[in-house]
């Protein structure tokens, strides 16, 4: 098991969220969408300019900006 910041994950890599290190509005939005510890995610790809990033989780696709993915820790 290795802990990574989601931003550093490569395309098609999957992992399990271990922590969300942000509070306030951003933290709440992230959690509301189902990004909570224990959730399995897969990096589906990135936009043509490498930002935002598209993730697959719980059967749907979510996009986040890189600076938002910075706050998410994933075990791979």
């Amino acid at each position, binding site marked *: 098991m290795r802990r990574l910041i989601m931003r550093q994950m490569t395309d098609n890599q999957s992992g399990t969220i271990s922590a969300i290190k942000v509070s306030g509005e951003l933290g*709440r939005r992230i959690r*509301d969408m*189902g990004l909570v510890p224990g959730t399995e995610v897969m990096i589906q790809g990135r936009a043509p300019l*490498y930002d935002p990033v598209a993730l697959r989780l719980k059967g749907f696709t979510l996009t986040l*900006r890189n600076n938002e993915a910075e706050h998410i820790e994933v075990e791979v």
Partner: protein
Amino acid sequence: MEATVALGGNPNSGKTTLFNALTGARQHVGNYPGVTVEKKEGTYAHNGCKMHIVDLPGTYSLTAYSVEERVARDFLVMEKPEVVIDIVDASNLERNLYLTVQLLEMGIPTCIALNMMDVAKSRGLEIDVEKLSALLSVPVAPIIARTGQGKRELMDKAARVAEKKGETTPLVVSYGSDLDQAILQMQREIEERRFLTDIHPSRWIAIKYLEKDEQILAKGRETNLSLATWLERTVEKVSVHLQQTLDTYPEAMIADYRYGHIRSVLKQDVIRETYDKDRVQTSDKIDKVLTNRFLGPIIMLLVLMGLYQFTFTYSEIPLGWFEAFFGWLGDAASAILPDGLLKSLIVSGIIDGVGGVLGFVPLIMFMFLGIALLEDSGYLARVAFMLDRVFMIFGLHGSSVMAYIVSGGIAGGCAVPGVMAARTLRSPRERLATLLTAPFMNCGAKLPVFALLIAAFFAENEALMMFILTLVAWSGALIVAKLLRLTIIRGEATPFVMELPPYRLPTFRGLMIHTWERTWHYIKKAGTVILGISVILWALMTFPGLPDSEVQHFESERDLVEAAASPAVIQEPESADKEAELSADASALKEKLAAINTEEAETALRHSIAGRIGTALESVSYLAGFDWRTNIALVGGFAAKEVVVSTLGTAYSLGEVDPEENESLAQRLASSPNWNPQKAISLIIFTIFYAPCLVTVVCIAKEAGSWKWGAFSMTFNTALAFGLSVLAYQIGSLI
């Protein structure tokens, strides 16, 4: 019986589709009081029960962060609907139930509509509806909103919930021993002092305190300051404890446990997956191509160009009908009404003014249809995804691109639907910045001005000039957006966190309703205010009329010309067919008379209030190289930019000028000693940046929720335009 039924659910869960299926054409679109969130209402008759259906904004949660969430929650709390139908996407159950759990915790009478059962099935998901209903203790009805399947059974169940008249016990979710203990402690105090318990369940209030819900916190302080302070302090203590022991916050923990609760429900054999979990879904396959690093942008460009082609090609024909109709109306009114002020008011003021606005309707309709198609299919979210990186630099959002493009980002759009397209943006600050800068784009009405000036002064580089002007508009809009985001709309970027909904084939009905709704909005908004302003502008350009001595002077000139001609020649134009060619004498006479008429028009225009304003402005506008004629044209252009060219025509004594065929005016300008390329550039720049046309200003005010922003865009844009024009003109004159 009558009942109010609220429709709640996640965005993209099929809420609007269900709403349309239930209410059909019996809907009414308005706004929630004080905000620009759309409120759709309709009725549905069910077994003699009249159900008043209210579509709540789509939300993922019921915190009070976004306007949509606040509106939805306030509606549920204040209006107390008899039942909430919570639309849940069966193919995306876990996340959708997050909102459901929050509704149940609030103790709101709920009925679940389990939508997209067909999609779930095709993905190999089997859902035990009975079990889900039993575990959550709410009725669940499987439906397929697209086809209307299961609609009756759903409404049966909803009606039964409504009959119980709000006898529901709030759901209790466990949040772990630390929080549960704190909640119980807080709950006791809240109940004892009846703290807000007339509107909310006590446990829910305690949870909201732990979540630091600003709305509840503020309400609490107003109600009972000492208890509110105690509650806040209690939360602070738990919060510190959690951070020290578990390195987390109460609100994070609450979200974790809510999702945990949902997972525990689903694990009890509610959901069964029959296919391989890692099977790539069709939608993902499409995305592999459409958001591909190289192909994606190319396809996007083609799609956007296609939208343009579609809109402008197909709206041309009905646009012609509208134009012809208003032309006919104007002619008919001219023929019936006696000459005089009333005729001038009705024909030039009302019919031309309102016609000018309503004439856009077909264009707007096609544009909205195109946008609805992109939106409903899910492609618009991909466009926002691909372009976000660029727009983020300027403090905007990927979705801003649509508003820009529709406004004329590809030259020839219209700012009115553009401003309205900014609705798809959910981030308030980004949206306001988009609204205010979209009108800088080169809309179709600015093009005749460019065409005229380019033809007159830069004829050899037409295409290049047009391209440069497009770049000028884009860079201007983006830079101003950045400036606004650094100053008056300052603030951190709203989190981008956006769902990419699966691609779906839009329903015909949905598209039609979507398109018509927005078009009707436009007609109503523009039609009412514009009438008043058209009349005012007409008055400005008409009053005061020429003094009698002047009128007589022109009259006698005409008489003089006519006296010089033989009676036969005077008769000729009136008696002859329109087709027949006039004799040389007669056409010479006609030309002379026309020359006198246009000179009279010019003199009258200069004499009018608008003319005086134009002349007065000359003392400042000379800095940018504009004389009084240009000033009047620009003042008139405030009504609609199309007016600029035709007013210039009047001011330069050319009589009626068709904006499409302005060659003679171009020649006239090119040879005029008053004009030079610097002035042309200055005028072009001014036209790009100055106050948006009236309809756009009205739309900005409505969409931004305040007339303040309408007034701002008028003054700020004009000041900016003037500054840039002066700069361009002065530098140009030096070189």
